[in-house]
C-alpha cells in the first residue's frame, strides 16, 4: 500500500499533541543547549514545541529507542541455595518517533536481521513492535554524510512506517506499512488525502551526498575479504584511541556485554549493556590470551564486520552512511576517507575491483 497524504506543520504539531495526550511516548529530535553549545538529540517530548525538525542530524542514533544502553534481562532472588527468577516484560508502551532521519530508520531494519537470526530477541522485537517510525526526508547534509554509498539516500523510505517529505506549509506523507496505516486510521482528520501532483520537494540532496563518497560496497567487501593482513590496518590504528565513541553513536553497532549486578546478597539483575569491539577487553579470554591484541586488529574488526562479515551473512551492509562516527571521532579517523582509499586501491588492482 502507498497512501499519499498531506500534513500541515500545524497539524503535525496537533497530531503530536494528540499522541502525548493519549499517553503515547513521542520521541523526536530535541535541541539541547549546554554551556552555549547546542546539540540535537532524539528524546521524549512533552509538547510539540520541543521538537526541532529543521536542525542538524541528532548526534546520537535512534537505536536507543529500541535498544537501550542498558537493559535488564531478568532479575533473580536468592535465599540460601534456592533461586527464583523474575521475568521482565517483553511488550512495551507504544512509542511514535517523529522526524527520524532516513539513515536511522533504515538501521533498525538492518539490525532486525541479526536480532532475528535463528533465535528471536524478544526484547528487541517487543520494542520494535511498539514503535512507529515517522521518518523525515533530509533537508540538509554535511561532508560526513555518505548514505548514497551504502544503498540509501536522503529520501530513503527504508524502515519508515510513514515517510514525510517537507513541502511548502508542511509535509507530504507516504504511509508505507500496516503499522503506519493503523496510525493513520486513528488520526485521519489531521492528514487529508494529497490532491493532484506532488509538490516539489524542498531540497534534493542526493547529488550532494553522492559527491562525498563514490564506492561500491561489493568491491569494498571483496577487498576486505582478501586483505586481512594489509599494512593499512596498522597505519590507521596508530591514530585510533580505541575509545568506541564511534560504535556508541552508530545506528547499526549492536555489540553488547552481559553482566550480573547483585543487589546485596539476596538478589540482583542481569543486564545487557552496549559494548564495543574497539575495547581491549572485548575478546580477552579468561586465561589472559587476546586474539585481537592491538588496535590494528580491533579497528580491522570494525570495518570488516560492517562491510564484509554482516553483508556475507545477511546480505546487508552494517552501515547507513550517517557519518556520526566521522563527526564524533576525537582523533580524526574518517570512514569516508578510509572507504575512498580502499575503493581506490581496489580499483587500481583491477581483478577484485
Amino acid at each position, binding site marked *: 500500500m502507498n497512501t499519499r497524504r498531506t500534513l500541515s506543520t500545524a497539524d503535525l504539531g496537533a497530531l503530536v499533541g494528540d499522541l502525548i495526550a493519549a499517553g503515547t511516548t513521542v520521541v523526536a529530535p530535541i535541541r*539541547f543547549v*549546554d*554551556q552555549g*553549545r547546542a*546539540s540535537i538529540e532524539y528524546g521524549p517530548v512533552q509538547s510539540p514545541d520541543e521538537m526541532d525538525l529543521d536542525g542538524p542530524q541528532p*548526534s*546520537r542514533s535512534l537505536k536507543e529507542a529500541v535498544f537501550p*544502553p*542498558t537493559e535488564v534481562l531478568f532479575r533473580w532472588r536468592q535465599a540460601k541455595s534456592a533461586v527464583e527468577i523474575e521475568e521482565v516484560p517483553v511488550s512495551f508502551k507504544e512509542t511514535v518517533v517523529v522526524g527520524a532521519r532516513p539513515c536511522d530508520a533504515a538501521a533498525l531494519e538492518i539490525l532486525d536481521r541479526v536480532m532475528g537470526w535463528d533465535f528471536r530477541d524478544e526484547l528487541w522485537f517487543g520494542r520494535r513492535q511498539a514503535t512507529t517510525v515517522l521518518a523525515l526526508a533530509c533537508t540538509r547534509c554535511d*561532508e*560526513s554524510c555518505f548514505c548514497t554509498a551504502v544503498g540509501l539516500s536522503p529520501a530513503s523510505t527504508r524502515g519508515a512506517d510513514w515517510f514525510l517529505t517537507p513541502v511548502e506549509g508542511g509535509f507530504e506523507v507516504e504511509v508505507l506499512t500496516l503499522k503506519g496505516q493503523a496510525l493513520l486510521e486513528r488520526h485521519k482528520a489531521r492528514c487529508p488525502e494529497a490532491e493532484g501532483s506532488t509538490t516539489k520537494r524542498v531540497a534534493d540532496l542526493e547529488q550532494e551526498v553522492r559527491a562525498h563518497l563514490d564506492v561500491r560496497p561489493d568491491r569494498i567487501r571483496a577487498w576486505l575479504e582478501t586483505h586481512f593482513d594489509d599494512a593499512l590496518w*596498522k597505519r590507521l*590504528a*596508530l*591514530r585510533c*584511541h*580505541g*575509545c*568506541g*565513541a564511534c*560504535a*556508541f*553513536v552508530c545506528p547499526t553497532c549492536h555489540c553488547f*556485554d552481559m*553482566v550480573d*549486578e547483585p543487589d546485596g546478597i539476596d538478589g540482583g539483575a542481569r*543486564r545487557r*549493556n*552496549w559494548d*564495543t569491539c574497539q*575495547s581491549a*577487553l572485548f575478546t580477552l579470554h579468561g586465561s589472559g590470551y587476546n586474539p585481537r*591484541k*592491538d*588496535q*590494528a586488529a580491533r579497528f580491522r574488526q570494525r570495518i570488516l564486520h560492517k562491510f564484509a562479515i554482516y553483508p556475507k551473512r545477511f546480505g546487508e551492509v552494517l552501515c547507513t552512511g550517517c557519518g556520526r562516527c*566521522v*563527526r*564524533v571521532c*576525537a*582523533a*580524526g579517523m*574518517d570512514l*569516508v*576517507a578510509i572507504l575512498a582509499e580502499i575503493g581506490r586501491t581496489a580499483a587500481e588492482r583491477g581483478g577484485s575491483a
Partner: protein
Amino acid sequence: MFVLRVNSMQDLKELSKKLLEQKQVSAILGYEHGRRGPRPVFVTEVADCERLVFDHRCVHNLAAYLSPRRTLVAQLGRLAVVVKACDARAVAGLIRESQLKREDVVLIGVRCGGVVRDPNGAEQLSADNVAPRCLECDKREPALADHLVGEPKPPPPGSASRDARLSEIEALSPGERLTLWTSLLSRCTRCHACRQVCPMCFCERCIADKTQPTWIETSPHARGNLAWHLTRALHLAGRCVNCGECERACPAHIPLGLLNRKVARVVAERYGYRVTDDPSTPTPIGAYRLDDEQEFIQ
C-alpha cells in the same frame, strides 16, 4: 576566510626532515590536514614531512599517544612529538610518573596563540569558539621542549572565566549538586572515550575493568555512571592537565572538565599545587610534606 600561514610552519617541516634523516627519531608525531580538519599523524618518511601542519585548529593533545599501553606506537621507536605549552604539561606528567623517560622523546615545542574547540570548523579563532583550556593560558610556548617552531603569537582571545559555571555549581547545595550531576551523567553510555583520550589515564588495568571484585558497575545507569566519573576525577587529582580532551571526545557532550577542574581547585587550595610542565616538580599525591593539612584525621 581562513588563512593558513604556510611559511610559519616551514621550520617545523625542515626540523622534522632533519630529525628523520639523522635518525634521531623513527617517526614524527604531529598534525596533518585530514579531509575535515587537522588530525594527528605519524610521519615516518622524509617526503611525508611536507604534510605536517600547525594552526589554530590543532586542539588535539598528542601526549595521549605517549602512554606505554599504546603498543603500536611504541613499536615505531623513538618519537618526536609536536607539543603546545598545554600538551607539554601532560608530557611532564608522564615523565614525572615514570611512564616516559625524558631522553626517549624529542619534544618539538610549537608557539601557539590559542586553538578552537572543534578542529573541524573552518572558522577564525575568536572568543566564541576558543577551546576552554585556552582561557587561562599563561604561556605561548612550552618550557619543556627540545626545539621551538612557529612564529610568536598573541594571547588567545576570550576573557570569560572558564570557571564561571564551576562557581555556579559550587553555590548549590550538595543535594542539588547530586541531582545536577546525576542528570548530566545520565547521558553517559560508558564508551570510555574520556579515558582513552586522556594522557594521564594510562593504567595497565583500569579500575573500571576489574571484575574480581567489580569495583565500579559497568552499566550506564545513574549509580554506575556516578561511580565511574567520580572515581576517574579522583584518580586524576593533581594529575589532570586540564587539556579538555575528555570533554571534546565525549559523544554525549557531558561537561566532564567541570569535575576535573573542581578537583584541581581543591588540590590547589589545599596543597598549593598546580600542574606544571616541569617534570621535576613532585606530584601532590606522590610527595609527603610535614606541613600537609590533615585536619580530617581526628
